[in-house]
């Protein structure tokens, strides 16, 4: 930054699938283990005409009909003029009753390569008059709302001048990270850096446990972060090492993207209760289903927090003004809760269990690819199994964590924490390893925002930094020059262009392999990532690999603009990878002859898409 004054605050933004939050650290008031951290109250329209500041901003955007709401009823403290959409609590509650105008889960769309994320396609099944927005544009609007809320509260210290970090799922691919960074730029927050959410959760724990964290972890620990948010589940492994007498943390592995979270659990309970009511001859319509989801969440919390109660009453109030007369009544039995929640989402499985396979890439309909297997423990088993060699011991059949950090509201329930620990401990016991310790004192509310703020503080040279770099090695596919075998695609080899663990602000070596590209014509490369191949260097060529090693990512594309060259000329280029200070992967094509550079686009889509 070239500002005369440095930032006054380190600010963290949690841009969640279902909720967003902002936390900050006053840099001038923090030092050593004393960190002055606070959450920013976020003013939002909570009902037409009413504005209230809350810690969480529901990540929903509602596009009302022109005449739907009284004039001026969407006014915010910082907006002098009427707005044509509303974000936050009012958006959520209005959308419950008219879903055709509601945008939700924009974050899940942002990491969905099957669609053009710059195209106005949300809400998906919009009413005809609705002016749809792109997943990118929605993300920009959320960030603008958060920026306005900050600037309104800190007119002397605008957000654009603070040290800003934005959380992204560790499993976000390079294109989704780049889109998030682009959204920040479009919202006027050019300098924002990205932080993986499970790392942010660990930073939050480091910040809130002050000095005691050094007593809770020891050298050789492998910390498993289990982060189950509203819409996504994310795993990371973080290793505790010693270097020059100091503890050092290194994020050594991240899981794959799982579109499955706490909201799915509440919805599953609601559908279960709906079925129960319908079996009794009652009808539950869609508007009531969302009320039922809230009621089910309440009943769930009651049973989870009171282990002695065998059932919780469930009352669905009547829709009209007849509250008692129209009410539907049933109850949630503990056995059903355990069946739906524990056995549905956290079943007891073997370490060798794997999620039900999902069809690869063949999206037959436009929609979010929700995880086909809802069992988070099976996804966890697959993650640990894939990372068996993460610490270099290839003899193990799965990576063995020694400590667990939970994040996400669902883990407020002791029952769920115990279930996850119990499952992991059973795996460890079978492998003859000791049980995991739970890292105590984790804040489950707004932990990502807090941790992101803490990361900003760490970046100014305080506290302990989690090292990591890229959680994948990256490869481009090269079609072999071998004679084609009829009926078979030409054999593909993979050229590594970025090694695992490439750190922010560094570039990978340039592989020797050069490509002859035609000037003026877009050229596509197959693009792959591997979360397990840690030894490959830039330039390594893989002739074969197992299916589980390399994941096909979205194709990348480059067009050599005709600046020095004439269209149609062939230029020999090498591909070079770098990770920006922001934390995004940047690929360039570099001319072998004169060093000219062209940017390789990560976010591409099929012509048909």
């Amino acid at each position, binding site marked *: 930054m070239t500002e005369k004054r440095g930032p006054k605050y380190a600010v963290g933004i949690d841009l969640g699938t279902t909720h967003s939050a902002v936390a900050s650290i006053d840099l001038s008031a923090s030092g050593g283990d004393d960190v002055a951290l606070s959450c920013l109250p976020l003013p939002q329209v909570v*009902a037409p*005409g*009413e*504005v209230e500041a809350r810690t969480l901003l529901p990540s929903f955007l509602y596009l009302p009909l022109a005449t739907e709401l*009284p004039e001026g009823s969407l006014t915010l403290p910082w907006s002098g003029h009427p707005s044509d959409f509303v974000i936050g609590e009012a958006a959520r509650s209005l959308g419950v009753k008219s879903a055709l105008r509601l945008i939700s889960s924009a974050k899940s769309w942002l990491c969905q390569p099957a669609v053009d994320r710059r195209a106005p396609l949300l809400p998906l099944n919009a009413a005809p008059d609705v002016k749809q927005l792109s997943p990118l544009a929605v993300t920009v609007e959320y960030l603008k709302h958060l920026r306005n809320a900050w600037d309104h509260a800190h007119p002397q210290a605008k957000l654009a001048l603070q040290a800003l970090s934005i959380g992204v799922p560790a499993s976000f691919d390079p294109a989704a990270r780049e889109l998030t960074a682009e959204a920040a730029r479009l919202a006027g927050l050019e300098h924002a850096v990205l932080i993986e959410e499970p790392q942010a959760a660990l930073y939050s724990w480091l910040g809130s446990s002050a000095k005691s964290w050094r007593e809770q972890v020891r050298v050789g620990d492998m910390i498993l972060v289990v982060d189950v948010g509203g819409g996504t589940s994310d795993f990371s492994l973080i290793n505790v090492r010693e270097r020059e007498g100091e503890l050092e943390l290194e994020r050594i592995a991240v899981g794959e993207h799982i579109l499955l979270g706490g909201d799915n659990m509440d919805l599953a309970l609601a559908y279960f209760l709906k079925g129960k009511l319908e079996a009794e001859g009652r009808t539950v319509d869609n508007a009531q289903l969302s009320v039922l989801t809230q009621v089910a969440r309440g009943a769930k919390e009651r049973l989870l927090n009171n282990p002695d109660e065998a059932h919780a009453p469930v009352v669905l*109030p009547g829709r009209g003004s007849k509250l008692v007369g129209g*009410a539907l009544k049933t109850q949630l039995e503990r056995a059903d809760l355990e069946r739906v929640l524990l056995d549905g989402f956290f079943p007891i499985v073997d370490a060798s269990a794997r999620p039900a396979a999902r069809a690869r890439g063949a999206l037959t309909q436009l929609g979010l690819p929700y995880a086909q297997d809802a069992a988070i423990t099976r996804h966890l088993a697959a993650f640990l199994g894939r990372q068996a060699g993460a610490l270099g011991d290839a003899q193990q059949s799965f990576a063995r964590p020694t400590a667990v950090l939970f994040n996400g509201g669902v883990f407020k329930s002791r029952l769920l924490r115990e279930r996850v620990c119990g499952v992991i401990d059973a795996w460890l016991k079978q492998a003859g390893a000791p049980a995991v310790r739970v890292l105590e004192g984790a804040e489950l509310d707004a932990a990502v925002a807090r941790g992101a703020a803490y990361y900003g503080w760490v970046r100014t040279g305080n506290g302990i930094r989690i090292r990591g770099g890229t959680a994948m090695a990256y490869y481009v596919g090269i079609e072999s020059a071998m004679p084609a075998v009829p009926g078979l695609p030409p054999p593909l080899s993979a050229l590594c262009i970025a090694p695992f663990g490439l750190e922010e602000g560094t570039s990978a070596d340039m592989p020797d392999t050069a490509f002859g590209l035609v000037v003026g014509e877009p050229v596509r490369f197959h693009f792959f990532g591997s979360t397990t191949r840690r030894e490959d260097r830039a330039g390594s060529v893989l002739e074969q690999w197992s299916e589980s090693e390399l994941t096909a990512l979205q194709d990348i594309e480059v067009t050599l603009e005709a600046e020095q060259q004439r269209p149609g000329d062939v230029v020999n280029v090498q591909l070079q990878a770098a990770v920006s200070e922001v934390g995004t992967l940047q690929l360039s094509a570099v001319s072998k002859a004169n060093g000219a550079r062209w940017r390789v686009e990560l976010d591409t889509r099929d012509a048909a898409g």
Partner: protein
Amino acid sequence: MHTHDPGFLTRFWLAFVVFFRVLFDATFAGRTLALRAGAPEAEVEPEEVPEPGAEGVQEPEAKPLPAQPEPAKLHAAQPEAALQLLGLLQREGRLLDFLQEDMSGYTDAQVGAAARVVHDQCKRTLDAHLKFERIRAEEEGSRVSVPKGFAAGEIRLIGNVAGEPPFTGELTHAGWRVAHIELPKLSDGHDVRVIAPAEVEL
């Protein structure tokens, strides 16, 4: 306006009204303090009750301090905050629907089931906007002492009320006080008299 001692319902209403006025009107709160401290009772000046939501209702301006204690006056409460709170309790907890429904045809179990929802949601809503505290920290039923010069607005003496403080007696109700209140801000032109809009499904 009542010039005689008001009945219970009127006092109940007045308590509500005064509660909000004290919270939002510092001048009025000052006068209330003076009144409670025993300022001589003044003649009650009738004051027009404004229509809810009527615009241009002026606060009585603070006059220069007279040598005599200022005569206590009655005033009309601003209904805005009361209506807004009622709207909140309806929106989140269906309180008005519940109170307005004819209960006579329902069984206790039906009423109880609905009351659970109303109670749960209304409590959440109140807790989100108001911070309550007990006036006395002691257990109800325990012996407590009431010192000389006690705040008569906070402690109500009941039963055999005679003599001079300090008193000793049984705490029958620990009291409630609002330590903090924060209601949503309203946009200009927002009609707080609409507690719940009518819904028409298309």
